[in-house]
């Protein structure tokens, strides 16, 4: 992973700005959080009951995932840290595949 707080030139650079970096990292974390929350919800009647108490469990699930995405996206963006496009693509692709496999694997093995 390559991160920097410097301000590289936008032209012909592999570095992406802090907003794209921040929300890209937030996406990756939110996707893994989504899979972990699903596993926790399916394993814990207490957590599932809590999420149902807030409304429909799926609506609560979505709200939590969106809060993580937008919350972390705003936070990471505000730090001003930038990352190379190649590294951010690794985060995005890796988390998408991992998150998908975690969900699919759960319903194959446990569900």
């Amino acid at each position, binding site marked *: 992973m390559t991160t920097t707080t410097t301000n590289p030139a*936008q*032209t*012909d*650079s*592999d*570095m*992406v*700005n802090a*907003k*794209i970096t921040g*929300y*890209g990292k937030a*996406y990756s974390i*939110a*996707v893994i959080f*989504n*899979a972990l929350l*699903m596993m926790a919800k399916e394993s814990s009647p207490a957590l599932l009951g809590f999420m149902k108490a807030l409304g*429909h469990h*799926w*609506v609560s*699930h*979505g709200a939590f*995932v*969106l809060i993580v*995405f937008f919350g972390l*996206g705003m936070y990471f963006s505000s730090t001003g840290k930038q990352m*190379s*496009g*190649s590294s*951010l*693509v690794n985060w*995005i*692709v890796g988390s*998408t595949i991992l*998150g*998908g496999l975690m*969900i*699919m694997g759960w*319903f*194959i093995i446990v*569900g």
Partner: protein
Amino acid sequence: MSEQVYLLLHPTFGVLGIIAAVWVFIATLNVTASNVDRIRFAAKTSAVMIWLAYIVAGYFYVVYYGGDKAIIKAGPWPWAHNFFMENKEHMFFMTLLLATFLPIATSGAVDKNRGVRKVVLWSSAFVVLTDLAMEGAGAVIGMGVKVALLAQAG
């Protein structure tokens, strides 16, 4: 609106989201200063369509799906719910977040910055792939209801 209208609107918005994401992908492969605004418009269109698909599907799922779920689970394809619906309702959040991220990614210098281009290309490609998976899962779930009703009818 009837239950069936929600069922038709959901995949329609999903397909429009896919088409817009393909537009982003192709236009980014051929980016020039003159089509950056179109890339950003397509990215916003994809995000709006996926959000509409989410809202419509969410309403249907919460209000109506319980009946369909009972029909599927009593029919010959219970896995249409146990595997495909369970996966769809959780994996959809990946598509939603990626589509939401797409306008943010295209807000960068798509025509001048190869890092931004890489991020936009991969993000739009995964919107297409994950959304296609959602469309396929939806078709299996719909068939799950159909075969269950056919089995009930004898």
